[in-house]
């Protein structure tokens, strides 16, 4: 089955540019999560693919077919919304059957497809239930079953977990993962929740202000952000950013910051004077005893965070950073000042335009 391609796609609402000249493709058999803060354009993009919103300019292709001018019902797309769309007063079975009837699918094939959808979503026991008796998760599962039963080419999910409580999210995510492995369609999933995206996606397309910031497999996006925005948006808390200077000294490029005990050699060309060092909280080494490449820092605050880890706010030269420590010693927890080291392999550098710069860092001294 082919992929979806969008080509120079733009959508304006009066003077607001919701989607700004995007060119991108969504591969078949994969879950692509459109991730970003509210107003980034992810929902508008999804709605244009569905045909619910007409692009201002640009095209949308499904394989070789130009979908841009086709009305929604001719696109063969299944869609799952924030609010589960189920018809009350009729059974789960009938709910799934409706779109098949509309498409004039013969009775025996209908039965087969409904049973297949019920099985995929583990809804067999609920087939005869009136859909108004269902809880939110089951209702959302019914809308998914409906969306897949008529074998659409593309399945779109628009923040489907918005109205599902925290406990049932685990259940929905579980079944989504199982389901997506079995489906071969193009799956596009919109969310603002980074954990949801990291958990469910094969690839994440991170968006900001109508543009695509970066598209990668989840761990690659987390570990190797191409822009400051990606480092900040993913992670809880996000990456620390520290201003640093890049200068020429004794014929070498050196990088200095109060978080390094001595300047670092930096192998790159054409780097700005001012750069930004990015490092994730969990990658900072913190110790109550001196580490080899560490500097002394003041502990400003400490608190317990996810999974009983400790979040330390530490300060060097009036710059604060957050460090996550998973198994702190008692000595470390009572220390007012600590040693911090930024392991070089975890440092990500950004230029003045907030874009990633690839450069090897080394300690100059022996």
């Amino acid at each position, binding site marked *: 089955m082919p992929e979806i391609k969008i080509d120079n796609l733009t959508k304006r609402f009066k003077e607001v540019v919701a989607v700004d000249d995007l060119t991108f493709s969504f591969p078949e058999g994969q879950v692509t999560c459109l991730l970003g803060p509210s107003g980034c354009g992810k929902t508008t993009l999804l709605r244009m693919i569905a045909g619910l919103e007409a692009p201002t300019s640009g095209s949308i292709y499904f394989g070789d077919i130009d979908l841009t001018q086709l009305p929604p019902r001719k696109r063969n797309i299944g869609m799952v919304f924030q609010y589960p769309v189920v018809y009350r007063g009729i059974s789960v079975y009938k709910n799934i059957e409706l779109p098949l009837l509309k498409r004039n699918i013969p009775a025996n094939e209908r039965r087969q497809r409904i049973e297949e959808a019920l099985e995929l979503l583990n809804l067999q026991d609920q087939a005869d239930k009136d859909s108004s008796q269902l809880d939110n998760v089951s209702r959302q599962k019914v809308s998914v079953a409906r969306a897949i039963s008529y074998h659409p080419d593309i399945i779109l999910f628009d923040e489907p977990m918005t109205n599902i409580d925290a406990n049932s999210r685990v259940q929905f995510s579980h079944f989504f993962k199982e389901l997506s492995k079995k489906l071969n369609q193009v799956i596009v999933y919109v969310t603002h929740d980074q954990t949801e995206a990291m958990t469910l996606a094969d690839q994440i397309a991170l968006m900001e202000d109508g543009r695509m910031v970066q598209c990668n497999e989840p761990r690659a996006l987390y570990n190797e952000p191409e822009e400051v925005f990606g480092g900040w948006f993913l992670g809880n808390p996000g990456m620390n950013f520290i201003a640093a200077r890049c200068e020429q000294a004794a014929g070498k490029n050196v990088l200095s910051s109060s978080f390094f005990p001595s300047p670092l050699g930096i192998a790159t060309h054409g780097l700005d004077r001012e750069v930004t060092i990015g490092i994730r909280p969990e990658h900072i080494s913190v110790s109550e005893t001196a580490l080899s490449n560490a500097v002394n820092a003041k502990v400003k605050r400490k608190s317990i965070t*996810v999974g009983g880890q400790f979040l330390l706010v530490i300060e060097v030269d009036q710059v604060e950073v957050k460090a996550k420590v998973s198994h702190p010693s008692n000595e470390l927890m009572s220390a007012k000042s600590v040693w911090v080291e930024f392991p070089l392999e975890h440092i990500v550098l950004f230029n003045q335009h907030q874009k990633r710069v690839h450069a090897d860092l080394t300690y100059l001294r022996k």
Partner: protein
Amino acid sequence: MDTVVEFKAVSKQYGKLPVLEDIDLAVKQDDFMVIYGLPSSGKTVLLRLLMGLEFPDAGDIILRGENVRHMPPKVRNIGYVPQDFALIPHKTIFENIAYPLRLIKKSTLEIKPVVQRAASMLSIEELLDKLPTQLSGGQKQRVAVARGIVKETDIYLFDDPLAGLDFKLRERLIDDLRQLQDEIAACFIYATSDPIESLTLAASIAVLHDRTIAETGEPRSIYLDPRHLSTMDILGFPRANLFDGHLTKNQSKLHCKTDLFEFPVLIDAGLPTMKDPLAVTVAVRPEKIQIVSDIDVNFLTADIYLREDLGAEEIIYLNVQDCSLTMVNPSSQNGHYDVGDQINIRIDAASFFIFEKDTGNRVGKGINNFNA
């Protein structure tokens, strides 16, 4: 330090529905007291009782040393950031922030510097001439907080002010609120249903569960050494794993047994004589479950129901026999576990806390018994 707010055996019910029962709570000046409870646990009611917007059915509330029973709300002099912070749509941000001061008939001359100070604390000075419709969600929230702190007083209440905001905005506002309290040096009483927000902001936490305060204390001490099941159960993300079990005495040694585990127990000092056997709830935090690669003593085989990747850490939901378990693995760099995989896990007996099932009070801890 002086106690500025005190609840003494306060109860409140709506019709026949009890909302708060026998609430005892003391808040000191300069404290950052978080009232932490699940949604609809009565946090808002508790704050409204203090504001004078609701009246207790029993008990007393002491405000700055004075019983408030006959004190009308407007003389209680408390700053308030409500959960539903609707701004007045046709008034400028300046006027929205100034509103509590207009209510107590302050002059514009007096109001101006105070509003400006509040605005600068929340970095919204440049918004003062705008209308609410021109602001983003996060900016509106800052305006609501500025409006809450504009009244210069020694006690401020916050009713879950970050609920419904997106994740990244909350991260930033949590930092701001902490700093704000440092600057104002007043007593903050802050209600929230987010465990990490509670643990990050609080100087002290009161856990409100099952209509009453289960436990009060510093975040670190009640998280690491909970005295009540409610604290263990709800204070933490992800929530703790709970199991039903029995505590029995066997030749003067105490022994705990659940469907999955069996281990010796060290009873807390100073407890009265207990029933034998005693019905207990055994609890273990998700971070205490470890993945073992080799076949270890006391390991369990678990099926992965879901693996959530939080970036810095992963939450793994497991099925072991008929039980569901949640574990946190602080390093998710590997990312090679997935739905349907099997892993071996172990839990040190010393990670178990044991609570009496009927009362929720802690009775003891598990002890590692390597010689067994």
